[in-house]
């Protein structure tokens, strides 16, 4: 009895220690964001304090109104959502098609094509910015949605193909063969039989592609000049110039811009964790 009691005591002590360690790391990871949110509610004069956090005399929601309106928040959010969704869909379609040809069909060049498609994973994305700028300029693609869609798809595709190939290997062939015997052609069979079986792969590829491109701004700021297609990071990028002395509003625009991604993450936490884990371990 005494032994069990001692063990239990040790266990609770161990748990307290564990929670303390984890909380310490959590504070380091999350406190800067709490600080950001706190400062975004204050007025600029209150920022020059010696304490860690401010209790604003009056909560300055006006900072957010300014950030929302002058930061073109809605337009940029809409652009981000549209461009990223399109990129995800295109990556999925191309990946499933290519993965099927590579893993299922019999042709000599299959491993070569596979390796070429995967090569993109090794190429640093920023090394293509300079020449792509020239190419898009010559073709009149700068400042259009294509200037973002093409590179976003191209640099998410290798991972998409890789993941889709490894998932496709694990689904049985009987169904598709039955469909083909019934006279279904390959394209239809891919759309109607294979794609529905690939749900978990589709989720993983979508999440990885979305995470890859959602926060991208180097290419966007190089290839775009007008507001038409600018994405969410621009709310922050443009604001810091415009309101360079009004720090509180800058804090607000940063908090506001971070919000959609954090909200989506907290809501879909489980799926995203699973997706990233599957993608990262296999990738």
């Amino acid at each position: 009895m005494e032994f069990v009691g001692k063990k239990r005591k040790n266990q609770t002590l161990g748990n307290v220690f564990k929670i303390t360690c984890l909380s310490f790391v959590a504070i380091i990871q999350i406190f800067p964001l709490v600080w950001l949110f706190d400062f975004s509610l204050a007025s600029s004069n209150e920022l020059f304090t010696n304490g860690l956090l401010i209790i604003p005399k009056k909560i300055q929601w006006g900072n957010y109104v300014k950030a929302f309106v002058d930061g073109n928040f809605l337009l940029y959010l809409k652009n981000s959502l549209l461009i990223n969704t399109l990129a995800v869909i295109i990556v999925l379609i191309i990946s499933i098609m290519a993965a099927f040809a590579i893993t299922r069909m019999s042709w000599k060049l299959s491993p070569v094509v596979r390796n070429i498609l995967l090569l993109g994973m090794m190429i640093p994305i920023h090394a293509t910015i300079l020449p792509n700028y020239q190419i898009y300029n010559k073709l009149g693609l700068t400042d259009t949605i294509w200037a973002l869609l093409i590179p976003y798809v191209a640099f998410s595709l290798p991972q998409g193909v890789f993941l889709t190939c490894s998932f496709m290997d694990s689904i049985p062939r009987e169904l598709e063969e039955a469909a083909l015997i019934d006279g279904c052609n390959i394209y239809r069979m891919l759309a109607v039989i294979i794609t529905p079986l690939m749900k978990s792969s589709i989720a993983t590829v979508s999440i990885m592609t979305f995470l890859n491109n959602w926060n991208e701004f180097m290419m966007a700021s190089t290839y775009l000049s007008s507001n038409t297609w600018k994405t969410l990071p621009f709310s922050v990028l443009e604001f810091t110039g415009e309101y360079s002395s009004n720090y509180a509003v800058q804090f607000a625009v940063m908090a506001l811009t971070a919000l959609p991604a954090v909200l989506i993450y907290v809501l879909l936490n489980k799926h995203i964790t699973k997706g990233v884990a599957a993608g990262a371990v296999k990738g």
Partner: protein
Amino acid sequence: MQKLYSNKWVILSLVAPGLLTFIFAILAPICLSFYYGLTDFSGLGNATYVGLENYKNLMSDAAFWTALRNSILLAFGFILIQHPLAIITAAILDKLQGKAEGFFRCVYFIPNVISVAIIAYLWKFIYNPNFGLLNNILKIFGYNKEVNWLGSGMAIWSVLVVLIWHGFGWGMLIYYTGIKNIDPVLYEAAAIDGANTRTVFMKITLPLMKPVIQVNVTLAIIAALKQMETVYLLTNGGPGNETQFLANYLYKQAFSSFKYGYGNAISVVFIVICLVITVALNKMFQEKEVK
């Protein structure tokens, strides 16, 4: 059936979109980079062929070597600081049951979903000498000097802290998944043998995590090489070129110094370095596995 599966036209139509994307968005620009790298193109006007001049200049360019050194520093920062912390945190988290586990996992990952643009500006504020969080924390501990975190000598370390902080959740999550995949029977057996936590961690967890660690280390080294966005917004390579990284340097050369040809030469070298290191790391880890 076999005929259906080896129809050349069907195969071509299935892989064509992928291959065309690769050719148009990756291969063609690399070829163009190679071409421009041999010229003195400024971005406008005509390009004159200068042979290997750009590459020769690059070899004696101090900023290029600083950029490489910074990548190595960052890689060490990832491998020696971020990853050990991530593994230990993941191991502790794994032992925790119930709601707390999910909560911590969620919190750790949040910085990862926030745009680099926000992260960079946020840390610029944290480092701000006037109202920054870091100096205020130091004041609480009685250190009243205002430190210029992004000033000369200090800047590279401040940049490393941001990058290590930002990527922590990602690394933690991958290690966490790896630890979750370890067969619990092994832990039970160790518990019966009376092994303590430390022994279990050193003798079971770490050895079984070896493949995951190898993948993560490879990814960390490559991420250190490819680093650009955070540095671009936080310091833009400055002061001087102290916090320069290759990607940021080539961008700056092309768009701020109007040495477009030179920038492209750096792009080519950058790609070659990334390819060589990726292949070398894969080879190294594969050979070890065979042994």
